[in-house]
């Protein structure tokens, strides 16, 4: 098994428009999805990211406020998981609830020493 990273991107303008009931349904869908990955021993780690942040650039003296990308591309969370290969990791992501609200998943294989 190899380790992969899911980078979840969504439009931060979408969630505030959701009703409490929709939020609950969405949460249930995420929980179920992650629980399933967990039960298959594929889930390693994952966290949502707070909307605020900083970006440091230049020689370290240029500090700007995040978020760092436009509109729909803001990173809202990440997940580290095991998968056979990139195809498998891609397949597993297809039922991610993020797509219900127009989000995207970026899938990247991590690089280990052993490789």
């Amino acid at each position, binding site marked *: 098994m190899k380790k992969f990273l899911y980078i979840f991107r969504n439009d931060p303008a979408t969630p505030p428009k*959701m*009703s*409490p009931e929709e*939020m*609950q349904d*969405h949460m249930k869908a995420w*929980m179920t999805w992650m629980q399933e990955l967990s039960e298959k021993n594929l889930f390693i780690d994952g966290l*949502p990211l707070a909307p605020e942040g900083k970006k440091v650039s230049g020689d370290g003296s240029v500090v700007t406020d995040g978020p760092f990308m436009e509109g729909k591309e803001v990173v809202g969370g990440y997940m580290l998981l095991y998968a056979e290969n990139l195809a498998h990791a891609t397949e597993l992501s297809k039922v991610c609830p993020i797509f219900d609200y127009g989000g995207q998943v970026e899938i990247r294989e991590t690089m280990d020493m052993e490789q």
Partner: protein
Amino acid sequence: MGKRKHLASSLDHLFRREYSKLVALLAAKYAARNIDLVEDAVQDALLKAMQVWSYHHTIPDNPTAWLYRVANNRLIDLLRRQKFQVDATDEILLNAGTDPALPDFDQVLPDEMLTMIFACCHPSLSEAEQIMLSLKLLGGLSVREIAASLFKKEEAVKKVIYRAKQKFKSKTIELQPPDNADLNKRLQVVLKVLYLMFNEGYKATEGDQLIKKEICEEAIRLAYLLHQHRFQETPHLNALLALMCFNAARFDTRIDADGNLLTLAQQDRERWDQEYIQWGLYFQQLSARGREISEYHLEAGIASLYVTAPSFPETDWSAILMHYDALIQHNPSPVIALNRAVVLGKVAGPAKALAAISVFESRPDLENHHLLYSIKADLLLLQDEYESAAALLKRAIDLTGNAIEKRFLRNKLAGIDI
């Protein structure tokens, strides 16, 4: 107690429930004029919960406490950002507020919820404002959900809620429980709003049926909250609860899978919710303690006779007619008179019913009411007067604006063999 759980079941709609709890708690703490910011803060707290709880695939043991902390701190943040709104009292609250000592929710919540119910049903608000504000603040429904279920435009709902909130923020509506002197009068208004809210959900109109049912459940839940925490022995409230439970028992059987309206005779009695019927009987019994008979008592009486009849033909029509006779004394509305005539038809035959209708049918407020024509058509059909019945049905179809009813009447018209 199994049946208690049924009514009070909160886990089904945890987020909605938490929304209304937190709005009530925070509005009480930070004044009603900040209601918009309170709602934003609660919304943000739920949003954070949605993200954090799902990644940890778990819900905290005390979700209310978790959400209260987040919403409270978020609200302080929002209030500070809008400094121009902050006055001296706010400043004290703000300084004391961060990382608050948690209130004893079991003790404080019912009071704050009751206060909020009375505020949303304040007499200075119009009926539409009372209902929509209640759905929003007490029910945790979004503008979109309210619009979808009541079959109204989102913009229209938004406007009503905006107007209601302007009054809500003004001095007229203070977030305080009504004085004892005023209490009964104010309670009657609350009951009326809950009754109308239930009817909005129950009406067989287009709109999201799932949310419509939830609106009925919400009205029952709020009435039950009043019953549990302060008004156990109030006959009007118990009668209203009985009425709502009896009707809620039939909710799922009134419309078939294709969206066709089913009459009482066509409904599948096996599918009537026995738990709701039991609750209805329980509250009906409670409502009989005391001397007063309200319209809620009479309507509950009628509804109970319908749901407890072993079959449609075995319905106790004479008893129902007696209830209608009393109801008309309370409220001489033409719609009640029409419904009474239907029952009279069952007891004394269609000719008597048509004669009864002829006494009041020329009232100007009935002239354009589809119910007059569809009910007369039904009675004429019983007398085999197909042509006149068909003409009346056509008139009724033209007059109703409700698509589900239109279809129901069209099907009936198509079934007439002239």
